[in-house]
């Protein structure tokens, strides 16, 4: 792991202890220009984590609390009639002008609001009344969602799920972590102590570096075989999309970069596969499988590119 990333992790650890790996994954997703979906039960620190991260990397952050009556115009902005000039004036919405959008409980929003997010997430722009406004760069959405089934929530549309690079979950802290957390909050607020250790320009620079990492044909072949296998798996009704394959490659690149390499290897893809793809798999009704089980299955039955490379350089 690169030194600069370690410092960010150290900062975040002041607030969230014992979740270093998850924080690293979020950071890597950020470097791969992808959005993050945090999926967990309430109260394990999803929001705290996102806030701490945005403070540590020194990017502007805005929090949007999604409720059923948040409207698309609240996010993208709207045009208002100005009587003095006699024309319409664009009023930017919540998405405009910030780097990190923290969408809290995104699965409580109505579907039209969620679809307003689609364009922002994919094209990094919003369109209001036929005019397109670009968003700040870099632009990242960290959305949190409570497990589907909690009152007042609905499952995210598949199209939107597909736009998140990774889906992560924090899980409950272990004994030591929880003790640390309680002790840290005796009479002080650790969130105040977080310094910005990674200025925004550097983040942009890192993102550029990540995009120069190369993937050899062997790795691309592995990604293709994995995703195609997911479409043919018996328990899966909708497999990993081509976009998923693209994201997989991007996440693997970020991982390789963090490992001080300028090329991806099979192990990178394998490591990120679960996080990148588990929310892209739609299981058949009553198949009795879990997405995690399918992911494991796919990794097991797809031959690793290492094995294919033994007889020299990989050839198509």
């Amino acid at each position, binding site marked *: 792991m690169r030194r600069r990333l370690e410092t960010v992790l150290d900062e975040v650890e002041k607030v969230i202890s014992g979740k270093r790996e998850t924080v690293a994954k979020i950071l890597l997703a950020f470097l791969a220009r992808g959005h993050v979906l945090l999926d967990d039960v309430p109260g394990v620190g999803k929001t705290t984590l996102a806030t701490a991260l945005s403070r540590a990397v020194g990017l502007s952050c805005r929090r949007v609390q999604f409720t059923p009556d948040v409207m698309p115009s609240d996010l993208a902005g709207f045009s208002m009639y100005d009587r003095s000039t006699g024309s319409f004036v664009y009023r930017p919405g919540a998405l405009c002008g910030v780097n990190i959008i923290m969408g809290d409980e995104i699965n409580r929003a109505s579907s039209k609001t969620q679809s307003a997010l689609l364009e922002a997430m994919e094209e990094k722009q919003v369109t209001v009344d036929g005019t397109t406004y670009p968003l700040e760069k870099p632009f990242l959405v960290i959305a949190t969602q409570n497990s589907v089934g909690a009152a007042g929530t609905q499952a995210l549309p598949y199209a939107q799920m597909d736009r998140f690079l990774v889906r992560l979950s924090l899980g409950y802290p272990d004994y030591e972590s929880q003790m640390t957390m309680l002790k840290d909050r005796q009479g002080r607020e650790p969130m105040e102590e977080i310094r910005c250790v990674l200025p925004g320009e550097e983040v942009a620079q890192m993102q550029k570096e990540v995009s120069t990492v190369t993937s050899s044909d062997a790795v691309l072949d592995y990604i293709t075989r994995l995703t195609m296998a997911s479409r043919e798996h018996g328990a899966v009704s909708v497999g990993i999309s081509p976009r998923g394959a693209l994201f997989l490659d991007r996440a693997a690149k970020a991982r390789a970069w963090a490992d001080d390499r300028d*090329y991806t290897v099979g192990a990178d893809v394998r490591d990120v596969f679960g996080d990148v793809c588990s929310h892209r798999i739609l299981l058949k009704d009553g198949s009795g499988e879990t997405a995690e089980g399918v992911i494991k299955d796919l990794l097991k039955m797809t031959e690793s590119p290492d094995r294919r490379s033994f007889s020299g350089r990989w050839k198509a």
Partner: protein
Amino acid sequence: MKKSLTGYFVWLFAAVCLYFFENNPGTRIVLCLTAVFPLIPGFRRAVFSCPGRKEPGKRTNSEKDPLTSGQYLPGKGDPGVGVRPYAPGDPAARIHWKLSARYDEILTRAEELEQSDGEREKEKKDAGDGTAGKRRIAFCLYILWPAAILACLLLVPGLRRSAGALCNRIFEESERLNTYLYPRFAVPDGQGILPAAGCLCLIFAGPLAAMILMRSRLTALCFMLFTVGFQVYFGLSLPSWMNAALFLLFALWCMGNRETIRENARILSLAVLSAILVTYIFFPGVNAATESASERARDLMADIAGTDAGAFLDLPGAVSETRHTHDLSPMEGEASARSEREYRPVSVGEQQISGPERTDWVRVLLLVLLAAALLILPFLPFLVLNERRKKVRETTALFENGDTAEAVCAIFGRVIAWLDAMDCGQGNLPCRDWAQGLEQTVSPDYALRFARCAAAFEEAAYSGRAPGEDKRREALELLKDTRNILLQRADGFRRFRLRYFDCL
């Protein structure tokens, strides 16, 4: 052991027991047929494969595409999928009004969490029950059905008589064939059989060794072909029980677990072969006992009839009035079996009998196959050795390749092959993750060096850059050490196999 094989063995054991208990040819045929059953692909799948497993890539029409029909959310499907009947206490917000209106019954949206806990368990249980049910059907088909037919053959008087008639018929046919075959083996008295038997054993020793060493199913098939071919060609055969045991052994050897097309084709051909074998075991009746009995009978007849024996030549088909009385009671066992074999002399002066006019195509085919096999056999060791030498030359050439990337990949691949062969491998895991496991299975020091080499390999395989000469040297050293460490661990036979077959 695989479940399918266990089932097969159980049935085989039962069949063999019955075979020895029931000494009647008709019953034996049925037994052998049931032993052949599992070799037929479709039947095997129906009985042994798990019905719950779904074929990948096939989507039935009834399952709608959830993306296009918008049905993938729970609570929007048919009643029964995402909804359940209203129970007192359900919140009103949870009532699915639309579906309630359609089905004229108040339905509540089922929560997914509920489903994940309770219903999924139940579904799993249901699926399990389904599997068990199909197993039961399979058991009925496979065990009870043949058993019932056997019982009918033994117990129903009419069937028993008919089976007796069938046996008679079989013996007639066999005797007819004997009269045809016997003159081909006119030998002076007192000729020892040991040299020929020795030669036969020597012939079988080669394929047997190859079969054990190479675990080749093809060899097993060839071996089986030999068994059949020799018996047919020389007209003398092993006792039929030995035949049956042999061919079942081969069949087991050839039975694969993978359900591939090639596998099935192999098994199908095997089934055909076994059918031929069964036919040849029972219809010619050319087992040793028959042989000696007819010989005795011929001598007797020659004594009685003297030189006039040639008069019998005109008898068409050489047998006509042979009849045996069969009592199919299993209780009489060996005694009744022996009485069946007291043949009436069928014809005399067989020395002068010419064979039938028509050509026996089955025989010709088997002879051709046999000849081909005999031609290939002496060269087999050379072929194997040659192949090996070629492979060795190729790999060493790769190690010395000018492109260090290819060389490092090849060397590292060989290291992995060695680890795999000694069960230290970790399958599909990326190589960089192997080091952890190797720490325990080999040694920490080795794991460290392995990790270094794995990094070099990854660079060579994925980066497109050629690593330095030192990387190649390091990898070669690792390969040498791997060989030494693993060869030290292997015991005698394993070492032999490792050195000459698995890893070159």
